[in-house]
Each structure stands twice: as structure tokens, then as C-alpha cells.
């Protein structure tokens, strides 16, 4: 990691837009913006149950074949597969 990537001023973005190799820290969960089939409360609950909480380190390890979807994300020491649509709720920087 270079020093510029560690910079606090790094722009925030949804994890759903991140490419393979991206790594960052979760800033917040914005479930109502994701456009998931789940309700915002349900989506946020499921994401937290899988370990997506503020401050957790994430890294995009793999991308799916069609439309680079779904993605395999390392969250701390667990690997979770999610669709990009649901990953839009995870705001990282």
C-alpha cells in the first residue's frame, strides 16, 4: 500500500463499483441506496451478520464471469461472495 492510498482524504465510493484488487476500509452502510430486492433493514442486517461493519478492512479478491459480477470480498479474515447490487450498500474509502 502506498502512502497516498492511506490518505484519509481518499474519496468514498460504494464497494459495488470497486474492481478486482481494490482494498479499503468500510466507512458506512447505506442500504437504502443499493436498489436490492431486500428491504433496507434486511439488507443492512445481513451485511452486518456477514461481518460488513464500519472499520472492517475489505479487499476485492475475485470477479465473476458475466459483467464482473458477483464479487468475492475479503472482509477481515473471511471471504464473502456478494452481487455488486448488494455491495452498492457498502461505502468504502
Amino acid at each position, binding site marked *: 500500500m502506498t502512502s497516498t492510498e492511506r490518505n484519509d482524504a481518499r474519496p468514498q465510493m460504494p464497494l459495488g463499483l470497486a474492481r478486482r484488487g481494490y482494498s479499503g476500509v468500510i466507512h458506512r452502510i447505506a442500504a437504502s441506496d443499493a436498489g436490492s430486492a431486500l428491504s433496507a433493514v434486511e439488507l443492512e442486517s445481513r451485511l452486518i451478520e456477514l461481518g460488513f*461493519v464500519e472499520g472492517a478492512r475489505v479487499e476485492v479478491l475475485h470477479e465473476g464471469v458475466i459483467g464482473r459480477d458477483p464479487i468475492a470480498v475479503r472482509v477481515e479474515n473471511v471471504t464473502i461472495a456478494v452481487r455488486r447490487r448488494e455491495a452498492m450498500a457498502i461505502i468504502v474509502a
Partner: protein
Amino acid sequence: MHLALVGTPNSGKTSLFNALTGSRQKVANYPGVTVERKQGSFVTPLGRQVSLVDLPGTYSLRGRSPDEEITRDVVLGRTPGEAVPDLVLCVADSTNLRLTIRLVLELKSTGRPLMLVLNMFDIATRRGVTVDVPRLSEALGVPVVTSIAVRKGGTADLLRRTDEISAQAPVPLRQNLWQPLTVAGLRATQREADRIIAATISLPTRPDTWTARIDAVVLHPVAGLVILALILFVMFQAVFAWAQPLMDLLSAGFTALGQLVHDTLPAGLLQSFLQNGVISGVGSVIVFLPQIIIIFLFILLLEDFGYMARAAFLMDRIMGGAGLHGRAFIPLLSSFACAIPGIMATRVIDNRRDRLTTILIAPLMTCSARIPVYTLIISAFIPARQIGGWVNLQGLVMFGLYAAGIASALGVSFVIKFFMLRDYAPAPFMLELPDYKMPRAGSIAIGIYTRAKMFLQRAGTTIFSMMVLIWFLASFPLPPSGATDPAINYSFAAMIGKALAPLLMPIGFNWQIAVALIPGMAAREVAVAALGTVYAIEGGKEAAEQIGQVLATKWSLATALSLLAWYIFAPQCASTLAVIRRETGSWKWMAVTFAYMLALAYAASLATYNIACALGAG
């Protein structure tokens, strides 16, 4: 003493359950739901009899699916007819404690006696994970033991502590303070879990290198799909090729047994009942046992290794377009061999709605039992002409029939997604990709043994009674003395066939076809032999070529094509329907499957027959 196993998916719960109970397991369904209830028993070192239930894996007690509701209700002692657990064992994968520690904190609030089992402790130690067990126990306020389920004696610590805890009984029950956690509550417990982990567990800085290396290939967009195709190819080969000698052996054994009965007993009803009803009926189902064992061998190996989640990852978008879960891929593929193991394999799908959709469309995959019917009609009616110099017309028709099956399965799934089961929250694809682990022979053997036992029990009950019913219909009433026509022409089957004939006239079926379809309920390919019987051709299945020649003179091309269209759907397989009834735990879904397949079969045959007639093939 009653124990309940709770844990996140992939926590090694099942291997611990197998290690504790061995083959003393009973698999059933919870009443009214499609959720598997696994119960076993063991005796502790101090001689205490313990009954253990393996509850569905879950990340929390919110109960977002019927499986997770079962887990919540059993832990809370709310399930009628289910013993309230005296001790809840929360199983954790020691290499991956983060999500389980959060679950432990939530379980604690239920007030039930609780123990945390750090399973796969050997793997964790090898990877450089160090856990301060006494401090962890103190921080959580629950007893913590380590275990290595796959090693002999690896559960000694767990058994000893269970004895200690049961000796203290009765434990003063603490109050149940559990209530469904809000988002803020979930977040707070995860923060608390992270705080406890930071204080008591040190993690290696590098993730498991083997998993990373394997995933770099297996999840690669190109190499990953090639590997998936390769695995499926080997699996398919195994199911068709490896199982065949065993199936032939079983089939020959049952025929010999039938012949023995035929030779020993005097000709008459008892002889016919034993030979044609019992032995050939049950035999026609049991021959599928080798295929079922091979499919489950592959599924259990891939599941235990950790590949199944990767296959779901690779196939998610492709399957998702039709409203199917990525995990439906393997069960549907198995259904090309036979829908019975395919439907049984849907147990790898956690979500009830996704599982039900897969069960409903699995019979549309062209199973091997349709092949004799297809080949008979194709060779009798479709000329072996080359099209464009290199495509064989017969092969093309066969391919078309397979493609039509797949297309209609995707279509039905799409309809189900948009019009039915809407009351159910769809499950977006969110799945843990566990670290790879070496599958253990013992655990796999127990898994196969339980599946095989379930299948045989089913063959012994539901399927057997259907076979007897079909035999009865095809044998009674007896032909009058001096009758010249085949005996089946005087039976209830013939009466039903003739009664149905007017209904089947619009799709071009004569009464002989209608009669043949009735014993065809036992197994689809039996219809071939039955057609031979109805047209009074001696020699049964072996005379298929001869049957073909007779059919070519008796049927129009339109009728033949219509029967092919019917067999794409072939709703009449009794064994499949019996398995659907068993797996969904409801007559309703069995009836729904039969009704929709019947409707599709009729519509397809009607269209085929009329179009063919209009084109001059009538």
C-alpha cells in the same frame, strides 16, 4: 440429556455431529416444512445417554428463513414436540471466529446453558491462530472447549465438559432476554465481538495461502469455467458409465429373482404379484441406487472440500437470469441422470424458495429413463438423413428434445419467480467462500450411508405401494378364459386407457398409447415394454426394434412426434412424484408438479400434433 448444535454455515458443525454420533443418526423433516431434522445419540464417558440435534446453520437468531426459524425456535424451546435443549453447543471454525463470536453473544441472551466449541483447532494452530481459551471463556462468560472433530479422540475435551455440566444440573435457568436484534443491536454485538477477538485471539497477518492459490485458478473467469466443466464432465461420466455395470448387475439380479419366483410358484395371481408387482416394481427403483451413491459421493466431496460455494459463485449470474440460485446447478445437472437423486441433492440449497423452484423444475431435465422411449420413436419415424452434409437428422431431433427440456425448465423457473412464491423474500446471492479443507473419508461415508438409507426406506414404502397399485391396475380384472388378446387389454389399465382415449384424441394418441402410459408410471422407460405388450409383441424390451417396425405401420408421423413432445415433460413418473412429496413434506407440491407438467405435456403435444397434421404428416 438433550444437546443442540448451533453454528454458522461452514463451521464444521456436520463433521462434529458425525464424529459424536457416528452412524446413529436419523434424518427426517420438521413437520410441515422442508427443513431437514438431523438427530443422533451418543453416550458420554460417564455413561450418560445424550440425544443431539444438528440445527440448520445460521449467522443470527433473526430467523430470516424457515431453516433459521427452526434453529431459533428450538434454542428458545418454542418448538412443540421438540425437547428443550439442556445445553446448546455453539460450534465455531477456529480459523474464522469473527462471525461465530457475534452469534455466541446473541445466544447468551437466550439464557440457555451454552458452550462454545472451537472446532478445527488443529488447522487454526497450524495457520498461526492463537486463542487464549481461558480469557476468551472469561470475556464471553461461557465455557469454551477446543475440538478436532475429524481426529480420533478429538472430542474428548468436549465430552468431559458435557459430563461436568450435566453433573451440575439442574442449572438455575437464567431469564430469556433475547429479542430480535435491531440493526443497531447487530452492529453493537459485532463491535463487542471484534473487541473480544482483539483481546483474546491473535490472527496471522497472511490469509491461508493454499486457499488463495487454489482460488486464483478456480475462480479465474476462464480457467474457472473450464475446471467447472471438467468436474461436471467427470461427474456425468461417472454417473452414466461407472454406475452402469452395477445397475446392470442389480437389474439382472432382480430379473433372476423374478424368474426364480416364476419357476417356483404355480402360474397364477401370487406368482404375477410377486414377480411383476413386488420384485420388478421395487427392482426398477433400487437400480438407481448406484447412481444416487455416485452423485452424493461427488456432491459431498465437493461440498466438504469447499468447492460447492465456488461453483455457485461462477454460475450465479448464468443461473440467476432464470431466477435460480447458483447452487441449483448441480442438482439440476444430476437430474439428467434421474430426477430422484437430483431432487434429493437440492438439500444443498439453504433457502426454501430457491430449493422449491429447483425441485419443481428438476423433472424437466431429460432423465436417462426417457432415452429408451426417444430412441424407439426416433429410430422408427425419423429418417437417418444427413442435413447439410454432416448433421444427422436423428441426432438433431434428440438434441432438440434435450434443448426443449432445458428451455422449458428455465421458462417455468422464470414464471415461478414472477408469479408464484411472491410472499417469500428472494435470497440475494450472499455466501461465505470457506477456506478449502481436505474432505474426510469417514464423514463422507456417513453422509452417503444416510442418503442411501433414506432412499431405500422410500423405495420400501411410498414407491412400493405405488408399484403395487400399478400392477393391480394392469392385472385386474383377469382376462376371460379363451381370450386371445394380451391380458392387459382386459384390465383396469385398459379401461382407464380407453376412457381417457377421447381426451387424448386431440393430441393424436390412440387408446393403446393411453394404456401403455399407465404402467409407464412405474418408470418412464417401462412404457416401451408396455407398448410391446399392448400390440402383442413377444420379447419385451429386447424386441424394441420390432416394436418400432410395428409402430411405424400403425401410427402416423404426427402421432409419433406428439408422443415425443409428451415425453419432454412426461408427468407420469410415480417415483419422482413420491420423492417430491417426501422432500417438500407436502402433497400440495407433488400435485402442483404433476398438474403443471401434465398441462405442459398436453399443450406441447396438442401443438405438435396439429402443426404436424397441418403440414401433412397426419
